[in-house]
């Protein structure tokens, strides 16, 4: 299993908003580990899915020059379970962005159902931790994410 919690982007408006999609399947280990005999997607992983969607949106806004990391969950409200067979949409919007950080708001929906509302803060670590050295490579934006974005570019849905 790989640490990537979105399958593809279906909308991408640079510096503003992005919508990613994830299909939740019975084949994924994580759905079986939360409650015995009740397969569901753990809420913490929905936060991670939002962090990946919003994090890529924030990273892309600066041309992926900064190392963007999740720094704070400002707010997370969950209304419904996500179970195998569900397709969830993860919508993220940039609320504020500065040199050192960004804040985002967003929601996760499944059809008409509002599953969750999640608001996050991201930090640009190079701007914040004086004197500490980080690896040159952008460890947050891995090859896997590039594939997800490339798919979006080819489909012509990116703005």
């Amino acid at each position, binding site marked *: 299993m790989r640490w990537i919690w979105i399958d593809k982007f279906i909308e991408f408006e640079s510096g503003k908003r992005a919508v990613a999609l994830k299909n939740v399947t019975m084949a994924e280990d994580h759905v079986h580990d939360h409650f015995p005999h009740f397969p569901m997607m753990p809420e913490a992983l929905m936060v991670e899915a939002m962090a990946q969607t919003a994090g890529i949106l924030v990273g892309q806004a600066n041309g992926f020059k900064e190392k963007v990391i999740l*720094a*704070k969950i*400002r*707010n997370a409200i969950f209304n419904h379970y996500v179970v195998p067979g569900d397709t969830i949409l993860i919508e993220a919007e940039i*609320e*504020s962005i*500065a040199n*050192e*950080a960004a*804040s985002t708001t967003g929601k996760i929906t499944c059809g008409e159902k509002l599953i969750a509302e999640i608001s996050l*803060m991201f*930090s640009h670590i190079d701007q*914040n931790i*004086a004197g500490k050295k980080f690896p040159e490579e952008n460890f947050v934006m891995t090859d896997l994410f590039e594939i997800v974005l490339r798919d979006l570019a080819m489909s012509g849905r990116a703005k």
Partner: protein
Amino acid sequence: MAMSRDEIFQEVKEVLIDALGVDDDEVTSDATLMGDLGAESIDFLDIVFRLEKAFEVKIAREELFPIENIMSNQDFVKDGKLTKAGLAEMKEKMPHTDFASFEKDPDINKLGDLFTVDSIVNYVETKLN
């Protein structure tokens, strides 16, 4: 946007309740952000973003919380304390802050105590009027 000091305080209070997850009655004028309200470094940026939204103003983080620029300058910090030059710089950069008790022992570990609810209200008041 003309606002009274009390209106500003109420709005700042809302911002801090949301940003730090604290209770209404914890946010008093003299409460310190770090010591009393448990703010960490990322929270300061969260507070800046929320203040910008609440008061519809642009705030540079180093204007409201100029601590990092001062700490990284060797002329301003010596043996864990702020030098005279450092203190003068802080006062100039943070006119909205009360330095009376910090000045007696300018230990850098106590810098956090300078950021009080009142100092934010003062800052916003100057910014708006």
